């Protein structure tokens, strides 16, 4: 069946929405009701499958003094294969589609991690010359702190020059890549928010 006009299209999607298996906005709304046990179960399913949790997959936020970037959780460390796979974990992210700046958060060597903490402990943030530069050859250190968040790893970039550069250009999208041992990777993107300076 071919839907031939916008009105039918909207109706059809409305039906889909009402069934409760519809657009992600519906999911976002539900997952904000944090006390609903059903929603909690849903979130654990998302996490177990390495899907960004609606509502928690927060936008990147560029504050006056720092930038808060949420990096998605690794699939392998959620699934915990035995024995653990040895290889590189790493996140590469670019501010803007024609990237203003590209950064990588990675360890210096391959590892057999059993938790996100293992990866966090040995990883650092580096600046790349271009989006195409290989991760391991991006070696210009960038000041930042990393911690575990509810939906992944949160990196607080505190390099004042870089923060200023991003605030000046105000790119609207963060392109993210996640790499895991064995060849698994993921490509996605999130919005960037610039809260007022009050």
């Amino acid at each position: 069946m071919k839907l031939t006009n916008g009105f039918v299209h909207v109706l059809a999607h409305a039906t889909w929405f009402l069934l409760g298996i519809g657009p992600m906005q519906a999911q976002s709304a539900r997952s904000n009701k944090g006390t609903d046990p059903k929603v909690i179960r849903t979130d654990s399913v998302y996490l177990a499958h390495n899907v960004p949790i609606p509502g928690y997959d927060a936008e990147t936020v560029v504050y006056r003094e720092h930038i808060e970037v949420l990096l998605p959780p690794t699939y392998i460390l959620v699934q915990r294969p035995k024995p653990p796979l040895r290889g590189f974990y790493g996140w590469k992210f670019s501010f803007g589609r024609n990237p203003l700046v590209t950064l990588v958060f990675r360890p210096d060597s391959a590892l057999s991690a059993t938790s996100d903490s293992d990866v966090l402990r040995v990883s650092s943030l580096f600046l790349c010359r271009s989006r195409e530069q290989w991760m391991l050859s991006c070696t210009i250190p960038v000041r930042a702190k990393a911690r575990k968040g509810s939906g992944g790893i949160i990196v607080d970039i505190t390099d004042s020059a870089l923060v200023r550069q991003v605030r000046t250009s105000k790119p609207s999208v963060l392109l993210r890549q996640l790499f895991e041992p064995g060849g698994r990777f993921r490509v996605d993107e999130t919005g960037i928010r610039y809260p007022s300076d009050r």
Partner: protein
Amino acid sequence: MVPRPPLVALFASLVVSLAPLRVVWAKPQEDSPLDPRLVLMVSEFQANWQRAWRDSEDYRRMRMPYNDFNERHVYVYCYEEMYRDRSPSNPVVQGFGVAPPQYVLIRSKRPSRSWCPSWSLAKSNLDVDDESAWRDGALRPSLRASVATQRDSLVVALAAALAKDSSSGWIAGQLVRFRVDARDFDAALQAASRCRALAWWCAGLSGYAHAKNNETLAADSAFGRMRAAMPDSLRCAWEDASLLLRTDQLTAYRKFNCRARDSVNAQIWWLADPLFREAGNARWVEQEVRRMDIALRKSVTQDERFSFDEQRGGDAVAEVLARYGWPSYTAWHGVAKDRNISYQSLEINRNASPPSPPYTSLEYAPGRISSIPEWRAVAFPYTATATDWALGGTDSSGAPNTSWWSQEHFWPGYRIVPLPKGQTVTVRRQSHVDVVAALELAHPAQLRRDATYDVLLLSTTAPGNVDSISRGATRSGGAIRLRGPIKSNPTVLAIEAVEQPARELAARTRFGFTPPPPLSAILENEIAVSDIAVLTPRTPSELEAPTDSLLQHLYPRLSLSSRERRITLYWESYGTQPRDSASIVLRVVPANDPGFLQRVGTAVGMVTDPTRGIEVRFRDQDARTGKTTLVGPVPAQMRALSLDLAALKPGRYTLDISMSLRDGRAASRQTVVELLP
């Protein structure tokens, strides 16, 4: 080359062993661990390629006609509910529509991942080339250069790694793969030649590089070496053809154990060869390329877009590739739709496989064919009929057909359309048999193009064993008659026409054929009648002393229009002497035998004979028929007779020639003609 099957013993040695239907995708990995830096580089390249592809698809989607975008929903979302319940009351159908009924949904063992392959869903797509021919064709031209640059850098790293460790099948494989993707086929072949990993894997990489460079014969040879070098258990899994067979074919296939399947597979690929005249088996080569593509991608868990690990439903995408090869185009509906599908998948089935975006359509350019024949042809090729090969790529008007779909299909490099069987007869000589075939190159696809065709009459009895019997040329719409000697053993006879010089269109027919033995094999006192040849009307002078040169006037078909009721019959009798004065009866009777009650009614005079036929009786010396004797140890009498069928109603008629001698010896022969209204 596919090895020759032991034809006689093949189906007699049927071993009942119901192996489970499970296709194993063999991995070429060695035991040594992979270099994590190289794995990361491959992943990084693939991620960047995906980024460029996403940008390309974003650009196209913004400019895509609304209906094209809308029509693709059902294929991009590809929910099983869309295919399980096609009724309008199904809310999923209400939301997204429903795919035409010929299409199949290919689902993973993990319940949430399915693929819905289809023909191309739009007349054209913006800034895109067929990615089944070149992977980067999926990228906008303006984005290809930066991807190529990064791929070059990856290739340098892989080449250096292979120089250090030529025993790594993984490194050799990825190097060949990326050099092929860069369309640097010579370098890909060099990389394959430096491979010192498992012999079968290195041979397979050579075959892969040759095939991607359209060197079918070299690829066929390399894949043959690959197959020969495989351990039995691996070959059994690698060559498993289960996914390519329909349920009815699969039931028969699964009755063979692993060892017997070697022969069955060889039989399948032999008969699936798109054109016997071309050196190398393009269909088998294509299947090996698909298997290599899958193995190369599984070894890195995922490729630029598709996940090949089982947790994320990689078995489903591998099945799509095994059955249909690489798609021509994949449409992506963007980040938001990916998230919708991910969430919906988890909502529908909490225990499903993890979502594996990007979710895309898998679109194939029409014009492809299905060349694997019906199972009865695989089991008994020498009695196969032309209709046992469906092909299926073209509709009745000659245009690419999009209303069909099949268990498998492929693109042989040019369109192939079916030819009518035409008329095929044999005449026996002292030490050999001549086969004469006539048909018209009048498929609507051929009539659309004014072209010349190079036509071959071929005989094949096994893979790689193809005899060229005769060759000719004719133009679109013309008739061709080919004659040549044929061995007196059961064979598959084929007529194959290839457009010259463009080679964009080919036409073929093939069928099982059992020629009679030569006259030297005729028994003492045995008499016989040859095939009856239906000829275009000949002049009385030609009939006075007929010879087998009349066969150049063989009708190119046995369906005669209302203006073609006058015909000439040509036949030969063997083992009789002119002095025998044989009694000959020619009957033309309806081919559909009347029912029992009708025959009883006719016999007792209660029912008027519903059939109208012709009966002609004459003796050997009768002046109404000309005769020429071919003198030899076993003489042959060449005969011709004009016949007017104008009084007969349209329908199918059996032409029967019966010959009897005074001493009681007798022989007869029949053929069937159809009189069209």
